[in-house]
């Protein structure tokens, strides 16, 4: 029966080409626009570490003086060197890492390559197991290298390809700002987007090429990159003694009991620092997990959200348009439908037949919408935004495109089909 309905649908669609083309075009445009923006939104609001995100937390403390104090205001997003070190050494979580961004000059050994700048991350050993960083060659450093400010480095596979043609570079020397670091590991494919652990550098598409111990970066006076918020006599310094927050601190906690205990620990720590005279404000702590953190920091650009709402509004207009046209088209066929009713077709059968017809329109519109979405994403990728290169259609979004297209057009077809199949069998015959 479905085949017959499909046949009828195709016939009917071909009979009024202009109207059909108009409906297909409207659905295609609506679907194309919404899928483009939904794909961008999907990519940007994605979970950078789906396996571990629910166990990762960003503790926040308020170490500032009373200048500009407002009760219940948010504490800073980053931590000071002293607090970071204290929390790191307290080891109250399953894993904890203290880190900051940097930018280092790489001087390749081959004279064919000019020196270039590479984003770097200065961090402590737990970074790698905590964020489940995969390794292609070698391994990360351990706590002993952190303690000894060892001159070691881990590099990304992209940098390894550039400097060593992708070969196992363990044991080779990397010249960084005039200092020699021994390469002990090469990362596998690891590009978490958004760049959740440090949103001060760039939210998307910022991937460090060099990782080295935080202690080493301080000994070598390597350049800090990212924000530093200071108070009192701070200036804009990112140095251990300055009253500035400029480091990111992350912990891994596996149970809710651990989370509650850690929050309590942060309060105790703040009280202790207050009694020591370092903190002046009453304890003000936060402990957000990774996804809450991304939400709090509003990583998804407002423009992208705005575009999504706009595109959905556009889809709505296209659908209302399609409902109107379909209604017109179906009502016009009242005589034909009346004949079919008179010949014994049930209302149900008519309804299904008309819905099949709108489904076919939806499928054609979905196909057009897919092409338009690909074009739209290509346009997005040409935009001057950090996230632009990430805008690609994945399998899930591809499926969603068709579901949305067919679902939307079936929805658009319900009202017209219902109205049309209420024709009385006799009445339409009489007029002829």
């Amino acid at each position, binding site marked *: 029966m479905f085949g017959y309905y499909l046949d009828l649908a195709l016939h009917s669609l071909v009979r009024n080409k202009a109207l059909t083309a108009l409906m297909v075009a409207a659905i295609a445009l609506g679907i194309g626009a919404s899928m483009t923006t939904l794909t961008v939104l999907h990519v940007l609001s994605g979970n950078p570490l789906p396996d571990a995100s629910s166990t990762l937390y960003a503790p926040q403390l308020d170490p500032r003086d009373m200048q500009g104090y407002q009760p219940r205001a948010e504490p800073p997003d980053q931590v000071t060197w002293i607090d970071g070190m204290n929390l790191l050494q307290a080891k109250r979580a399953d894993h904890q890492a203290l880190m900051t961004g940097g930018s280092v*000059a790489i001087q390749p050994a081959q004279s064919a390559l000019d020196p270039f700048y590479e984003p770097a991350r200065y961090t402590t050993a737990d970074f790698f197991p905590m964020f489940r960083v995969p390794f292609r060659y070698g391994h990360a450093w351990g706590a002993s290298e952190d303690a000894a400010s060892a001159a070691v480095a881990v590099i990304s596979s992209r940098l390894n390809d550039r400097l060593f043609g992708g070969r196992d570079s363990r044991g080779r020397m990397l010249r960084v700002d005039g200092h020699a670091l021994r390469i002990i590991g090469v990362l596998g494919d690891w590009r978490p987007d958004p760049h959740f652990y440090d949103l001060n550098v760039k939210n998307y598409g910022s991937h460090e090429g060099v990782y080295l111990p935080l202690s080493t970066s301080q000994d070598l006076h390597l350049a800090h990159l990212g924000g530093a918020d200071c108070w009192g006599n701070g200036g804009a*310094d990112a140095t251990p003694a300055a009253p500035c927050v400029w480091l990111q601190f992350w912990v891994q906690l596996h149970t809710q009991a651990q989370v509650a205990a850690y929050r309590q620990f942060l309060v105790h720590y703040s009280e202790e620092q207050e009694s020591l005279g370092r903190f002046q404000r009453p304890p003000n702590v936060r402990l957000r997990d990774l996804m809450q953190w991304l939400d709090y920091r509003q990583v998804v650009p407002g423009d992208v959200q705005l575009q999504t709402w706009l595109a959905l509004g556009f889809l709505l*207009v296209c659908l209302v*348009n399609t409902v109107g046209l379909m209604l017109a088209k179906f009502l016009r066929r009242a005589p034909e439908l009346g004949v079919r009713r008179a010949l014994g077709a049930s209302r149900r059968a008519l309804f299904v037949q008309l819905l099949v017809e709108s489904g076919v329109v939806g499928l054609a519109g979905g196909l057009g919408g897919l092409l338009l979405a690909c074009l739209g994403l290509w346009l997005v990728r040409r935009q001057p935004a950090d996230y632009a290169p990430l805008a690609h259609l994945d399998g899930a979004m591809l499926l969603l495109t068709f579901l949305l297209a067919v679902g939307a057009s079936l929805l658009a077809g319900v009202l017209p089909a219902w109205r049309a199949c209420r024709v009385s069998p006799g009445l339409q015959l009489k007029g002829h």
Partner: protein
Amino acid sequence: MEIRPILSTLLRHKTTAFLLIVQIALTCAIVCNAVFLIHQRLQRMDIPSGIAEHQLLQIQFAYVGDRPDAYAQAQADLATLRQIAGVQAVALANQLPLSGYAMSNSGIKLRPNQQHDSLEVASYYGQNLLATLGVRLLAGRDFRSGELLDYKAVMPALHTNDMTHLPHAVIVSQAVAARLWPGQDALGKTIYVGNDIPLQVIGVSGPLARPDDLQNGPQYSIVYPIRLTATEGGSYVIRTAARDRKQVLKAALVALQRLDPNRIVLEKRTYDEVRQSFFGGDRAMAGMLAGVIAAMLAITALGIAGLASFWVAQRRRTIGIRRALGATRGDILRYFQTENFLLATLGIALGMGLAYGVNLLLMQHYELPRMPSIYLPAGAIALWMIGQLAVLVPALRAAAVPPVVATRAS
């Protein structure tokens, strides 16, 4: 034109008429807001930087390793640049207007021990800055060379409050002066930054846009008498005639690289490119909005045309009868035009309420200002015109129906 027959016909097509009204209303609401958004973007892109944009070049370097002689090197670089043919002035600046990267901001207080900052401003500093950028001085004077301090001496002095190595004078932009001392002369006034470091206002400059954070007051900026070097993040700024920019940029890069090959070029661009890249996102957004508006209006027009043709086809017999009873072609044409006008008016009335609602939502979630009411009549006129144009072809076809149709069986 008698409206009652139109209304009674429309009442017989309630659903289709209602759908058309809804479509016009949605289009009206979205288009009004989208045009408003475009206007916002264009306004933002129009912000004056206050500097001689078409005559400026920016070159930024990074050095490999520490450079103890950075200040001597900077002076040598500046001297070399000045000798290049076509160069009118050179400066070394910590940050530049609309460059997208803010290196330094200050919280300003009007009294010592003040709890909250009175204003947050962008802090500019560098050597020969105002003259090179072409910033006008509206009152007071520029810094004297003896007033300039080295950044490397200022930073430690900031921690120890060592006043001998801290600046005492500052130049504020007119926007800052007007905000802090409305209706008063800013010259000679004192502001406090950091740990209550006093600074006397010795000059008031014309517009000088921030590097970034335009929503915090696009023209709130001050200039300190501080010198810095490229190792401390400074950019070389070169002023030249607009037509000489390309060759001066090339010559400057060659000369600087010859002076010290051990540096990495981070930026080399004309100021037009700086502005271009700063507003790239706004331009893309405005373009995208314009595209959606065009597509939405086109879809709505085609929808109106489609439904109107359907109605014309359905009413051929009625039209024929009216023609046979003496209605002119013009009467038939006017009938359909009036019908569309009625539908569009209902849609527009609904759409204005909706447009207002959407604007309220946007104000709540995206910190947009209220939409000026001029957008509503403008949107209404646009939709009326589109409706009339869209219905014209079907209406002409209706007018062409011969009276003889009335005599035929349908």
